[in-house]
């Protein structure tokens, strides 16, 4: 060890403590000083407080912003294949509107996301929060509505969000196309009754995707699709086609009675930096300074109610609350996209935020020669394969 390091180590070991007398002086002095400048402070505080009171319900929007990335990129699949019409896909490919529910993870406990799809527009609602999203994939715009506070927020979603969402809709079509084009990859699962409907099942298992599809035996239309990915499964169910959809439901114009909250936020891209910030928020805000045991879209969705509570408790101004939610969500958008572009591993269980030696997350895109490793203090390094955590 170097001698100069010994000097600094020695100095660091010699620490004083503030006296009780100083504590009393400072605390009472702060109170007196603040009381003395109360009039001045009031000028600063009043507009802000009024603003917070008006907009505090927006924390719900912030919470939704956090899950948007998960919800819309869940279907980022490129199955390939060209349509070859079979009896079962005809109604799917010709449908002008789709309505379906999907659940990421535990079907019994997970958040149910309800989609109404008409061309490039989607109206999306959630089972565990009242917020409504309206997405326009052509313009890359998203309208978020909080019915409780009658508050609206618009946000740009160009990039992976648009592509992922488009793929989710296309998923239903591509699945059946795959079945028709590659019968060798399809396994007959037999018959099964789902919600009183007799269905026939198929298992599709190829390098791109593993999923099962259950179709109404009489009508030959899919009623349930189970998509397997890593340790998680996404279930699409209650699928309907050509349901009449009122234009007002899928309009990105701010509805009458709502106040538009202006922001300059965008969810157009997901970067490593976003992901690092998500890890920080999760550990610092949701998990008492420790990284979560598991990392997945499903795990994140479970945190959303707590995330909303925490945001409310912080009493942040609307803009900052939404920004925090967007930051949280963008990081997991990065994770979702990464799942389709490379490989990643999570080792954060038991690691405390600030631990510079413990690797929390490592990944690489494609055939990259080195991995990007994120450590407990959130610094990032390029690391060779043989130096990765075991």
């Amino acid at each position, binding site marked *: *060890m*170097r*001698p*100069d390091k*010994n*000097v*600094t180590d*020695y*100095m*660091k*070991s*010699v*620490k*004083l*403590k*503030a*006296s*009780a*007398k*100083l*504590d009393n*002086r*400072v*605390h009472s*002095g*702060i*109170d007196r*000083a*603040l009381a003395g*400048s109360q009039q*001045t*402070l*009031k*000028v*600063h*505080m009043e507009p*802000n*407080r009024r603003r917070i009171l008006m907009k505090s319900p927006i924390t719900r929007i912030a919470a939704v912003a956090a899950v948007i990335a998960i919800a819309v990129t869940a279907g980022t699949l490129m199955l390939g294949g060209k349509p070859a019409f079979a009896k079962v896909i005809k109604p799917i490919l010709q449908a002008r509107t789709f309505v379906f529910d999907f659940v990421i993870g535990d079907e019994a406990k997970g958040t149910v996301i309800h989609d109404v799809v008409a061309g490039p527009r989607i109206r999306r609602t959630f089972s565990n929060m009242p917020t409504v999203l309206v997405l326009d994939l052509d313009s890359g715009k998203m309208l978020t509505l909080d019915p409780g506070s009658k508050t609206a927020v618009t946000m740009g979603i160009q990039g992976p969000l648009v592509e992922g969402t488009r793929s989710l809709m296309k998923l239903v079509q591509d699945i059946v196309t795959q079945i028709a084009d590659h019968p060798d990859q399809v396994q007959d699962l037999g018959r099964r009754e789902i919600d009183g409907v007799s269905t026939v099942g198929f298992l599709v298992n190829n390098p791109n995707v593993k999923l099962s599809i259950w179709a109404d035996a009489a009508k030959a239309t899919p009623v349930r699709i189970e998509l397997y990915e890593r340790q998680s499964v996404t279930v699409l169910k209650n699928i309907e086609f050509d349901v009449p959809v009122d234009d007002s439901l899928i309009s990105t114009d701010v509805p009458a009675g709502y106040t538009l909250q202006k922001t300059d936020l965008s969810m157009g891209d997901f970067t490593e930096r976003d992901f690092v910030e998500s890890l*920080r*928020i999760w550990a*610092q*805000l949701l998990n008492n300074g420790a990284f979560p045991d598991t990392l997945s879209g499903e795990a994140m969705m479970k945190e959303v109610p707590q995330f909303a509570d925490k945001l409310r408790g*912080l*009493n*942040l*101004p609307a803009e*900052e609350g939404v920004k925090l939610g967007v930051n949280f969500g963008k990081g997991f958008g990065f994770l979702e996209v990464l799942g389709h572009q490379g490989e990643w591993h999570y080792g954060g269980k038991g690691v405390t935020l600030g631990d510079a030696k413990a690797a929390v997350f490592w990944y690489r895109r494609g055939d990259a020669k080195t991995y990007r490793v994120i450590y407990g203090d959130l610094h990032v390094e390029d690391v060779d394969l043989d130096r990765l955590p075991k």
Partner: protein
Amino acid sequence: MLDDKLLIWQFNRGRVEALHRIYEKYKHDLVTLAASLLTDLALAEDIVHDVFIGFVQSSGKFQLTGSLKGYLATCVANAARNCNKAERRRRHVTLDDVDPPGPGANNPVSQVVLDEDFRRLSRALDQLPYEQREVLVLRVYAGMTFAAIAAQQDVSLYTVQGRYRYALDKIRSLMMQTEPRTVRLFPEVSA
């Protein structure tokens, strides 16, 4: 850090508990810093007190551009430097001059006075030119970068690095001369 940003946001909205929390979070570091700069505990606590009371006035308009700890450390260092130029000559009460407490005393200040390690360190620091001492203390106790210290002292980065090196050498030399414990602390030097 997110915590500090939130505290500053609350502080700017006049929430008094935020400033109390900031004080509680950094008080020991700042007292150590000030005492190391001034080698005078009473003055050091006065400095920390004044910095926080002065900080109140920035409520509503304070903007944090770096770390909060670094900002507060700079405030303490500036105040200590001013104090060092004037008041310290008038009111020179060093750690060595403070009477030790009687049995059963539980005053942390008194306990600190009894801290032989700090007394020893204080004597050594007191023999450094003030600028060198400031560089060393800001680097070690406030974790400031050389660039930030250079900006604070309004000198070049090279000068700051030189002062740091001289300070380290001097401290090591001083502590080697008189204190047996330092021999154990710096075995490489004694060998």
